[in-house]
C-alpha cells in the first residue's frame, strides 16, 4: 500500500487557495470607486433620510455589495 502516503491530505495543495467571493468583492469595490469618480456622487446631507439618499446611489451600492461580499468571504 505504498500509495497511501500520497493520499495524505497534507500532501496536496488546496484546489483553490483564494476565496472567489473576496476577489469578486474587491473587483466590485474597485468598479464602484471608478464609477463614482467618473459619474460623480451627490451629497444630500447627514440626516437619517439624507444619509439614505447618500447611500442609494449606484456606485455606492456597488461598493457596499462588494464590501459585504468580501466580509462574507473572509468571515469563514
Amino acid at each position: 500500500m505504498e500509495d497511501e502516503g500520497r493520499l495524505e491530505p497534507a500532501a496536496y495543495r488546496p484546489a483553490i487557495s483564494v476565496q472567489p467571493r473576496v476577489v469578486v468583492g474587491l473587483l466590485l469595490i474597485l468598479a464602484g470607486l471608478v464609477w463614482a469618480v467618473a459619474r460623480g456622487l451627490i451629497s444630500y446631507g447627514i440626516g437619517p433620510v439624507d444619509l439614505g439618499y447618500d447611500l442609494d446611489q449606484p456606485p455606492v451600492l456597488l461598493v457596499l455589495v462588494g464590501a459585504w461580499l468580501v466580509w462574507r468571504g473572509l468571515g469563514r
Partner: protein
Amino acid sequence: MILPQITIARGHWLLGALFLAVMLEEYLPRVDKEGRAVRSRSLIVPWALMAGAVGVWVTVVVADIVHDILVHFLWGDVLFAAGALELARRRGVYERPWLDGVLPATFLSCGALFIVHVTIDPSSQGAHWHLAMGLCLIAGGLLEFVRLGLRRAPTISPALVPLCGFALALIAIPVAAAS
C-alpha cells in the same frame, strides 16, 4: 399616488443591489478548509428574495399605470413564493427533488414578465432596459436548468453571468428609464 422619477429610480437601484448580493451569495462558491468549492445554501438568500418581493409589491401601492401594477404584483408573488420554498428547504422542513428547479423557474418567469411588460408598453423609455433585463433573467434560468441536468456540473454556475448582468442593469438603470 405618483412618485418622482428619481424616487422610482432609487427603488430600482436598491433592488438591483439586493439581487446582485443574492446572485453572488447563491452562485459564487466559498472555499472550505480542504480547498473545495462549496455552495453556501445560506438563509440570507430566501429572506432577501422575500424582502425583494415586498419591495416590488410597493409598486402596486404607488404606481399609477395598470400594467406596471399588474406586472410588479406578479413579480412580487413569484419572488415571495420562491423565497418561502427555499426558506422551508434550507431550514430542513420541506425537501423534494423538484425544489432544485425553484430558483431557475423563478428567473425564467420573472424574465418572461419583463417581456410581457415590454410587449404591453413597447414605447416606454425603459423598454430597451426592460428587454435586456428580461433576456438576462431568461438566459440565467435556462442555464441553471441545463446545469441541473448535467451529471458533473461546473463549480461556478454559468448562469451567474447573465444573472449578475441583470442585477447590474437594474443598479445602473437611468432615472428616465425606471418605471
